[in-house]
C-alpha cells in the first residue's frame, strides 16, 4: 500500500507533470517543461536512433522529437494526431517528447518519491529514476538528461 501523495504545506513540494504512454504512466519535473504542442509530422533525421522520429519547427527553432513509446521499449499504440508533444528544456537544449496524452500536474513531498525498481535489462533503466504513487496509479519519474545519449566517439563523420 502506498501513501497518498498528500500536499504537505511545510516541506518543499516537487511539482511533476504526468502523462500516458500506451497505458503506462510517467512524469517529469515541471520545471523542465516549456510548453505543450499538438502533433505535427516531423522531418526525419538520417542515422538517428529509432526513438528520435525527427525534428519539427518550434517558432523558428529546430526541435528534435523523441517518441517516448519507442524510447521506453513499449509497444506504441499507433501514431494519432491526438498525440501531444511536451517541449522540455534539458541543459539549455529543447527536446520534444511525444506522448499519448498529458494527464495531470501533481505536487508531491520529496519523501513520497520512491526509488526506481531494479530495471536492468529494460531499455528504460537509464532514465527511470523513481516512482510516485498518485491515487491508484504508479507513475514512473523520468530523468530527462539521459533521454538522448551523447554521441559515441568515432561514429560521426567529421
Amino acid at each position, binding site marked *: 500500500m502506498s501513501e497518498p501523495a498528500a500536499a504537505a504545506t511545510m516541506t518543499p513540494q516537487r511539482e511533476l507533470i504526468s502523462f500516458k504512454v500506451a497505458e503506462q504512466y510517467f512524469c517529469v519535473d515541471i520545471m523542465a517543461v516549456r510548453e505543450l504542442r499538438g502533433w505535427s*509530422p*516531423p*522531418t*526525419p*533525421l*538520417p*542515422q*538517428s536512433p529509432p526513438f*528520435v522520429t*525527427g*525534428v*519539427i*519547427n518550434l517558432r*523558428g*527553432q*529546430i*526541435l*528534435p522529437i523523441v517518441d517516448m513509446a519507442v524510447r521506453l521499449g513499449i509497444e506504441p499504440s499507433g501514431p494519432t494526431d491526438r498525440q501531444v508533444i511536451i517541449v522540455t528544456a534539458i541543459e539549455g*537544449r*529543447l*527536446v520534444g517528447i511525444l506522448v499519448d496524452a498529458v494527464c495531470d500536474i501533481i505536487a508531491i513531498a520529496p519523501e513520497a518519491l520512491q526509488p526506481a525498481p531494479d530495471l536492468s535489462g529494460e531499455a528504460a533503466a537509464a532514465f527511470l529514476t523513481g516512482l510516485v504513487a498518485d491515487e491508484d496509479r504508479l507513475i514512473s519519474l523520468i530523468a530527462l538528461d539521459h533521454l*538522448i545519449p*551523447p*554521441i559515441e*566517439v*568515432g561514429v*560521426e*563523420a*567529421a
Partner: protein
Amino acid sequence: MPEHKPVGTLSAESLAAIRRVFFDECDEHFADIESGLTALEHGARDPEVINSVFRAVHSVKGGAGIFEMDALVAFAHRFESALAEMRAGRLEPTSDVARVFLRAADTLADLVQAARDGQAVSPERAAPVSEELARFAAPPDPFETFDDIEFEPKPVAFEPMPAPSAGGVWNVTFRPYASLYAKGNEPAVLIREVARLGDATVTLDESAVPTLEAFDPEDAYFSWTIRLATTEGEAAIREVFEFVDGDCLLSIRRDDEAGVPPAPSVPDPTPKEILASIGPTQPAAPDTPAIRVELTRVERLVDLVGELVVHQAILAERISVGAAARNEAVAQALDDLGQLTRDIQESVMAIRAQPVKAVFQRMSRLVREAEQATGKRVRLLAEGEGTEVDRTVIERLTEPLTHMVRNAVDHGLEAPDRRAALGKPEEGTVRISAAQRGDRIVIEVSDDGDGIDRERVRAIAVERGLIAADAVLADDDVDNLIFAAGFSTAASVSDLSGRGVGLDVVRRGVQALGGRISVSSVRGVGSTFTLSLPLTLAVLDGMLVSVRGQALIAPLASLIETVQPRPGDVRRLGAATSLLSVRNSYVPLIDLGRALGYRGEEPAGPHAVALLVEDDAGERAALMVDEVLGQRQVVIKSLEANYRPVAGVAAATILGDGRVALILDPAAIIAGERRRSDPAGVAA
C-alpha cells in the same frame, strides 16, 4: 542673447555606451599598434608608421582619461612619451626598441582588458616594461610616478560654487590687437561674457580709428572699458580672457571708489568635492560586451531579412501561377520588390562582413607568449588577412585558431637545437592563411615541424580503446585520431596546451558552426591543420530537392550542375558501387535516399535527377534525387543547438510552409560513401 540649456548630468547610460565604444576602439588601436610595430621590427622606417602607432597609443590614453582609468593612463603616457621621442627623431627605431614597444603594447592591452573587466591591476605588472620605456624618454616628465597623476574632473555636471556675498566693482580695460581678430576671437563675445558676471556698463573708445585713407580693415582700433559690479572675483574676470592673453592689452583693476574690501578668493572645487556632491555615478548595470549584444540583434535582423526573402519568393511564385502574373504592373512591382529585398539582404550582410585580420593579429601575441613559454623560436607568417567573413563567424574563429597555433608551437615545432641538428633553420615557421572557397572560408595553420608521429598516435588510440589493435587505417585517418575524445599525446602537461581543452572540444565547437577541421602531416616535414567554416552562419543559397518525399536543400556552392542520367550512363562497379558517366569521366553515383537512411523504394523512374557536387578537395559525386524543386535562399538553423551533429547534414532550415528541411553536407556524404565502399582505405 542666445541662451543654452544648462548642462545636465551626462546620463549613466550614455556614459556606459561611450565606454563600450572606447573598448571597441581600443581593439582597432591595438591592431594598428601591432601592425605598425611589427613593420618597425622588420626594418620599416616610414615616419607615417611611427606616427600611426603614436596616434593609436595617444587615443587610448585620451579615452582612458575620460573614464579616469588612472593606471592605464599613466602607463599609456609612458608609452606615448617614448613614442614621441621616436617621432621626433631622438630615438632610433631599431628592432630591439620595436620589441620593447611590442611588449609595452601587450602590457597596455592587458591593462585595457583589466579595465574592461573591472579588475584592479597591481603596479608591479607594468613596472618592468615601464622601466624600459622610461629609459627611452629623456626629458623630465610631469608624470614621474603613478602617484603624481592629477587629472581634470570626470565629465559630470556640477553646480558652480556660489560666490560669497561680498561684492566688488571692477574696471576692465580691453584693447585687442589685430592678431586677436585673426584667430577668430570676437570682442563682442568676450564683452558679453564679462557682462554676464554681474552688472556692467560698457564704454567704447574709438579714438584710435584713423581716417579712411589710413584705415586698414585687418587692423584693430577699438578699445573698451567695462565697469562691472560683481560678486565674482578677479580670477573669474580674467578667465574670460584666457584665450586672448597676449593678443590684447588687458587691465583689470578694482574700482577704489566703491571702497569694498576684496572678496575672499574661493578656490575651485576639487575633483573629490565635486564627485562627493554628485554621489555614485557608475552605471548600475554591468558592462556588457558590445559585440555579443550586437550579434543577437543582428542575427534577429538577418533572420527577419531571411524570412522576408523567403516570403517574397513565395509571393512571387504564387502570383506567377495566377492571373495577376499577366498584369505588367504587378510583374514589375514584384521584380522591384525582389530586387529591393536582395539589396536589403546584401546591405545587412555587408554590415557584418569583416576581414579576419583582427583574429590573425591576436595570433602574433599568442606566438610571442608561446615562444617565451616553450623556449622555441617561431616566425609567424600570415596570408589572406583581408579575407572577409560574417561577423557571426569571426568571433568564433579565435578559439579553434588559438588551439591550432598553440598546438603547432607546442607539439609541432622542435626545439631550436634539435632543428639545427636536423638541418632545419633554428627558427620554426608557422603559417596561417585564409581564403574564400565558394561559400566557405578555409583557414590553414601549418608548421614546418616534426609532423605527427603516427605510431605513437595509433598506440595511444589502441590504449584508450578508440580503435581495435588490428584495425587498418589510412595515414590521414590516423592523423585525424588526434581529434577523438579523450585523446592527448602530451607527455607532460605544458603550460600552453594543458589548459584542459582537447582537440575534440575544438572540433565539436567547429562542427557546431557547420564547419570542419582536419589535419594532414608529413613526418619530419610538418603538419597542416585545415579549418573550413561557412562564410556566414546565417543564410545559404541552395537547391530544393525531394528525396523519398522529404524536402532537402543542397548548397549551391557545392553544386556544379544537375544531370538527368540516361540508363546507359550508369555503370556498376563491384557489388555496391555505381558510377555515372559525366562527359568524359566517371563519378560515383550515390542514392541519397539510401545514404541518408530513408526508407522506401528507390525510384528508377524517368524523373530521377542527379546533382553533380564537389567538395573542398575537388572530389566529385552525383547525388540521385527524386525531383528538383527550384532554387531557394534559406536561413540556416542549427541542429546542434538542441540536438547534435548529424552525418551528412550540415544544418536545417524552415521552408515557407513551416516544415523543416535538412541542409545537405555534400562533402560529408561523399566522404561517407567513400568509407562505405572502401572501408579499409585501400583504394587511392
